[in-house]
């Protein structure tokens, strides 16, 4: 552990980079999947093709996507992190989109009708009634996407943009320096748990009405 202490500045740097590389795609995925999910929930015919497209993207291996993107975004220079962020954003989109649609569809029909009958226009109803009620399901999707993204960033180490993943490559090249590999692993697990805890906290904050009847996930 003295190794970790001596290299704490480097570890902090990689941790920060890792978080940036993992969370930016999730945020992009959320920002795209919200309007897309709203469209899918409103126009039913639109959902199957959108879902198929995002699933196909999800099926493409990360490494293949990196290689496909390298000619456009490069391995060095100002756009290098996009080589990693774009594929991860697509994965996040594929994970979060179904949850946005499911969350909106789970709004009980009487609630929707009551809102309409009371004089909510479509937009106001969406913002004030439907989206707030979809929050728990959307955040459940975000949790999966976040943990997956944090884990996937390390694959980026293969192309030199990998946050804490660097420690695995470096450890391997230094004759299997297990301390470095273990520390990298522990840090990744730790930030995954922390990010998940933050999301649970956000959900609790946004859904005070669920307090006292929470079911399933902690």
């Amino acid at each position, binding site marked *: 552990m003295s190794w970790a202490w001596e290299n704490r500045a480097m570890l902090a740097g990689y941790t920060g980079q890792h978080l940036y590389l993992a969370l930016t795609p999730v945020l992009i995925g959320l920002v795209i999947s919200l309007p897309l999910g709203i469209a899918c929930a409103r126009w039913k015919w639109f959902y199957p093709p959108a879902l198929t497209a995002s699933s196909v993207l999800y099926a493409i291996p990360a490494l293949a996507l990196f290689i496909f993107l390298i000619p456009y975004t490069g391995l060095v220079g100002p756009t290098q992190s996009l080589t990693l962020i774009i594929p991860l954003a697509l994965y996040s989109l594929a994970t979060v989109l179904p949850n946005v649609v499911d969350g909106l569809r789970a709004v009980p029909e009487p609630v929707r009708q*009551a809102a309409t*009958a009371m004089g*909510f226009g479509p937009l106001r109803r969406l913002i004030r009634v439907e989206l707030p009620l979809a929050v728990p399901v959307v955040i459940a999707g975000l949790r999966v996407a976040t943990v997956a993204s944090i884990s996937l960033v390390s694959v980026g180490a293969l192309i030199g943009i990998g946050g804490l993943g660097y420690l695995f490559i470096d450890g391997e090249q230094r004759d299997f320096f297990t301390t470095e590999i273990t520390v990298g692993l522990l840090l990744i697990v730790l930030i995954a748990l922390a990010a998940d805890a933050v999301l649970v906290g956000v959900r609790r904050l946004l859904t005070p009405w669920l307090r006292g009847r929470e079911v399933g996930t902690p």
Partner: protein
Amino acid sequence: MITFERVTKRYPGGTVAVDALDLEVPAGKTMVLVGPSGCGKTTSLRMINRMVEPTSGRIMLDGRDIRQAKPAVLRRGIGYVIQQSGLFPHRTIEDNIATVPLLAGWTKAKARARAHDLMELVGLEPGLARRYPHQLSGGQQQRVGVARALAADPPVLLMDEPFSAVDPIVRASLQDELIKLQAELHKTVVLVTHDIEEAIKVGDLVAIFHPGGRLAQVDSPERLLGAPVDSYVENFLGFDRGIRRLSFLPAAGLTLDDDAVIEVGMPVADALRACKQSGAPWLLVIDSQRLPLGWVSPADLEMLPAGARVGGEALTPYGHTFSVSTDSLRAALDATVLSRTGRAVGIDADGRVAGVTSYDSLRAAIHAADEAAAEAGQGGPARDGPARGGPARDGPARGGPAGQGAPG
């Protein structure tokens, strides 16, 4: 006032939900739309606030075509209560109730104050204001639904099967409360139900629909029960409409027998003479305050020694009573049927004995009411007769089924 003028709703598949409906809902009255499923009653209701647009015809609200207003604006002036309450799960009770006032631009403080007033009006504890809907019982949620619909004080209230998701006891109390509320607020209410009993109980007017969206009959409940236009309506009303109709006739129309009432302490000989004179098979013994004690028969009296006085003990219980001033003929009939002596005790507002019934007196009262109805003729619904608004309309809750076996 809401007026349907030749309103038809035809769906793309060709199904006709509502067929050339002409219907007038007078201001301040409760109109109940009732019929089997698929009869177009809910579609008709939803056309009033433009949740469904008619294919042809038009709907007027106080003389204005409802299509002149934007749907969202129109709807803020029309309260809406839905089955399962449709409360917003993510909003507290007070915020749910304050929804329409807030949409209409009231300040938060004013809207909240209004919500608290309404909670009181519909009988909700103030402590529930900060709770969420799922923390309330079904009956409480439905009360919140009614409060929310009334929040902006709309002149019109639409209720879509509002009480069908709660158990029968809660349902009955919610119905009573709606009647009470309506006596106070005089909203123009349109209520949809499949339950004819509910329609008869809460409606000033009842519209019975045929399957396929045609109107079978619109009338006051007592006229429906008294004069259904065809066998469809008659079947829909159920087998005991003759008995149920009596709910709308006041017990005050009964001629009560006072000769068969004797005071405790009367010499037995006098009592026997009273018996012979009135020909009554039973005498009601009362105390000096005219409170009932029980029944005694001539045979019982004859077993007493000569010179004795009528005692207050060993009497046949007087059973259920009915209130002459507030109960209906149905309550009087029910009390008579349940009585071991075939007679029931009518009491006045102070609980003192006004007299006793017999089947003869009931028959005479029903006959007189029919005569009066025939005289009033086809002059439209005359609804202000019997006392309304109290739970007394169907008589006090009783154990036994009243009047079964009586032909409908």
